[in-house]
């Protein structure tokens, strides 16, 4: 589910790309120091984006040099721990836990066992994160339950399940700062986009397995391809991105506006295009999409 939010690397300046990497590393370090090393294996781009936006709203953005397991020899530049980083770290840990919960619930056999084992190992970090952000944890639980119910009822709507998911991201930035109203709107629409793009990406797979997929049901697709409804999906996805962008421009970021605008105006439309074309690959094509 996680990892669609990324910049279009070719359009970034070199220093912007380095800054994006340093936020990624900074978030990873924050997660490790607060919730334990193991939590960092589930670290996603989507939370990096959250950290990037929240840190851009802080007046002083310091960075430091640190070593880590992935880079043991040369110290790398990392964005320093701050309120925004800590928020994004807790959100990341809580989301990862609920994702595992979801996997353990839906899958059978080996996958379920794996998810349960991982959950067992991650439980202490999760409990600490849930103590740090109790409202977000509760909201995530409620929204995911609602989502599961909608899935069970096989609701043929894009908006309703997407809304349940988007409210999770809205809660991730709720009561964060004076700009919360704008941030909530911005991340609500990002969340809607993430849910729908994920559904589009899964069409072929869900068609084969018969799993719930709002895109298949909404358009009554009779073949495992998104081709016939490409235009319509593109339209509704871009509308969400436009709404997110229009919220974003009302913020006053101290830095990193170039990166955030790249993500909103180029990275996400590019991912949209690739998913709808069927050229998007989450793991195999890593480097082609400008991921780390």
């Amino acid at each position, binding site marked *: 589910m996680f990892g669609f939010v990324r910049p279009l690397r070719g359009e970034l300046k070199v220093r912007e790309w380095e800054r994006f990497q340093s936020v990624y590393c900074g978030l990873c370090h924050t997660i490790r120091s607060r919730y334990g090393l193991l939590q960092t294996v589930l670290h996603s781009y989507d939370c990096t984006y959250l950290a990037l936006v929240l840190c851009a709203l802080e007046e002083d953005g310091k960075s430091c040099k640190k070593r880590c397991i992935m880079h043991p020899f040369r110290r790398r530049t990392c964005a320093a721990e701050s309120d925004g980083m800590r928020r994004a770290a807790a959100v990341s840990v809580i989301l990862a836990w609920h994702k595992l919960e979801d996997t353990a619930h839906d899958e059978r056999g080996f996958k379920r066992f794996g998810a349960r084992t991982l959950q067992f190992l991650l439980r202490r970090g999760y409990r600490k994160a849930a103590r740090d952000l109790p409202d977000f944890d509760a909201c995530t639980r409620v929204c995911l339950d609602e989502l599961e119910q909608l899935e069970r009822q096989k609701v043929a709507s894009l908006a*309703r399940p997407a809304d349940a998911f988007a409210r999770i991201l809205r809660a991730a930035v709720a009561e964060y700062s004076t700009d919360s109203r704008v941030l909530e709107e911005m991340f609500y629409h990002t969340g809607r986009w993430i849910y729908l793009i994920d559904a589009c990406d899964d069409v072929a797979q869900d068609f084969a397995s018969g799993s719930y997929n709002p895109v298949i049901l909404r358009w009554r697709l009779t073949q495992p391809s998104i081709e016939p409804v490409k235009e319509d999906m593109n339209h509704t996805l871009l509308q969400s991105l436009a*709404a997110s962008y*229009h919220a974003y421009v*009302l913020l006053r970021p101290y830095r990193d506006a170039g990166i955030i605008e790249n993500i909103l105006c180029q990275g996400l439309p590019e991912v949209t295009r690739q998913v709808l074309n069927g050229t998007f690959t989450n793991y195999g094509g890593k480097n082609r999409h400008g991921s780390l």
Partner: protein
Amino acid sequence: MDPYKVLGVSPSASDDEVKRAYRDLARKYHPDNYVDNPLADLAKEKMQEINDAYDVIMKQRQNGGASSNGQGHNHQGGYSGSYGGYSGTNASIYNQVRNAINVGNIGMAEELLSRISQRDAEWHYLRSAVCYRKGWFDEAMQEINQACTMAPNNMEYRRMQNMLSNNSAYGGYRPMQQNDALDCCTQMLCLNCLCNCCGGGF
């Protein structure tokens, strides 16, 4: 606040640079981009700030004797997202719904709509407006299509349908392009138009 900071230009910028910065920002925060948007009030404030900053700079420069070719800029503050009149069986309750939408109380509008069992074109239209406000764009589209099928001659519904279905739905957002820069050709065209207007027929 420093008006130059608001427009994001340095105090030594030329009049044209100031004007261009103003125009770019005005396009970004234009009320048209925030029709039926819950953040419309903030965008309006921002627009006001930009207009004020531009006025202050231009006034300063005129008084200081700096060259200014006096082209007016239009204040586009008039956000009107109000829904018009309707007369039918549920007229009074629909009016309440419209009021609720106009003041931004979407929860109440939704609640009122859900109580109506007889669903005519107006119901679907208002439901579309509610969905749009919430960012449920696909559902908004379905509802407005339904309203237009039921009442094909209603101009208000058609307008909404057009607004939702074509690219103007993205407002100032241009995916896959640099959002801030107008390309050279467009700019020349704009300048050309302005010259024609002011100079009077070359």
